[in-house]
């Protein structure tokens, strides 16, 4: 996003805060899960901690699309998210079948989120070259 209207400023603030929370949660949980790793419900809760800020980023993106009053910017960001979603679905679907037939190594599901964020970059490029 190149301009900074109020909706974009709120979005940026939320994403920066959540990114910092994600980094802190990931580092903290990685530290806690060193030998001996926790077990039971506490382990579940701790393992989920880094996921929560990422979920927050997805929600922040949705809130931005709701709060953005400029229809063109909303359309551009929606297209970006759609391209990211398509990219993530294509890669995870193909990888899933390759994995099922033991052609590629097994990867953790959270890579779907990383692919989606990468897809946002692709969406940004697509927007730049759109008619």
């Amino acid at each position: 996003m190149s301009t900074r209207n109020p909706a974009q400023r709120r979005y940026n603030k939320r994403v920066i805060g959540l990114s910092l929370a994600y980094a802190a949660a990931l580092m903290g949980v990685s530290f806690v899960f060193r030998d001996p790793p926790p077990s039971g419900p506490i382990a579940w809760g701790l393992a989920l901690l880094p996921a929560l800020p990422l979920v927050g980023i997805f929600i922040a993106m949705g809130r931005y699309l709701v709060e953005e009053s400029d229809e063109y910017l909303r359309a551009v960001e929606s297209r970006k998210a759609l391209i990211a979603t398509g990219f993530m679905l294509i890669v995870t679907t193909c990888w899933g079948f390759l994995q099922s037939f033991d052609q590629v190594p097994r990867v953790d599901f959270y890579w779907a989120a990383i692919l989606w964020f990468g897809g946002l970059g692709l969406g940004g490029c697509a927007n730049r070259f759109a008619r």
Partner: protein
Amino acid sequence: MKNRLKVLRAERDWSQGDLAERLEVSRQSVNAIETGRYDPSLPLAFRIARLFGLPVEAIFEAE
């Protein structure tokens, strides 16, 4: 859709930023509409028409 936004803006000696401010949209929106990269919604098209005191069809034309 083709449009006469750039001409109408130039006649009034407005920059894209001036027009964007009057329409309460981003400068990128004005640029995207002027260059034909984005067709505005009906409400925005009517707002543009009202601002220039013209009917919508005097500004926008189907290609």
